[in-house]
């Protein structure tokens, strides 16, 4: 993935990891760290517009379809919005590609007390206010790890 699309968020960085994640806000039972190239982009509330553009550029470059790209952009945006509102105001976005899918993960200092909550079907008006529920509907898989130390929400989109 090209770092050029990260101009707007110039502190984004590409890193290659082999060992466990060391971040302070890692959930106690964090999701397993993927191997290989990961693009890390820290964000705050003022960055959401640029974050959407960045995910759109990346997914388009990785040849995810137009509609799936829009869904992934919305999913990342909704989870990032939760970070800004409830997760300490800032978060870290990680992007990587596996053989068959694009994966976006957001980590923040928030605590999702009911990770199964998004799977319950709310009424349509309640749905409008539940970013995580929307995210569950438009991703192929959403993994959540959360503890009082922080949360990870990992969103998967298949490359067809």
């Amino acid at each position, binding site marked *: 993935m090209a770092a050029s699309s990260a101009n707007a968020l110039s502190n984004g960085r590409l890193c290659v990891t082999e060992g466990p994640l060391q971040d302070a806000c890692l959930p106690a039972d964090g999701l397993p760290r993927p191997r290989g190239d990961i693009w890390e982009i820290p964000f705050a509330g003022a960055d*959401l517009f640029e974050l959407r553009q960045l995910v759109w550029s990346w997914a388009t470059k990785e040849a995810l379809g137009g*509609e799936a790209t829009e869904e992934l952009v919305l999913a990342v945006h909704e989870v990032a919005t939760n970070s800004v509102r409830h997760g300490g105001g800032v978060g870290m976005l990680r992007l990587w590609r596996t053989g068959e899918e694009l994966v976006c993960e957001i980590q923040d200092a928030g605590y999702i007390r009911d990770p199964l909550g998004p799977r319950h079907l709310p009424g349509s008006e309640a749905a409008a*206010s539940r970013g995580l529920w929307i995210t569950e509907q438009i991703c192929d898989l959403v993994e959540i790890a959360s503890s009082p130390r922080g949360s990870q929400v990992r969103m998967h989109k298949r490359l067809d």
Partner: protein
Amino acid sequence: MGAPDQLRIDSRQEADRVVLALVGELDMANSPLLQRSIESPELQETKTVVLDLQGLTFLDSTGLRIILSARELCWRRGQEFAVTPGSQQVQRLLSVTGVGEHLRTLATADEVLA
């Protein structure tokens, strides 16, 4: 980059209605702009309020909530409330949440409510 830059709201008064045309992206950062437009005095006396979403390229759950609260406000005032279809992304959010079924939708902002 200021968040309000991503959204413009053009308001136009017609015979018995006000059309608010949303152009750009509506999200958590700029939804207060829409909230203020909806609460503006010029909307209070009109018979019908139309939110024209044809120029809206992105909508999130916060923006959707503001649209729903606009509808509630219009109902309380005894006004008609309608929207026009937005971009594919906007329509996707309306359909996945089921909200689209509960919104009166005009083909275009020029369509007259029956």
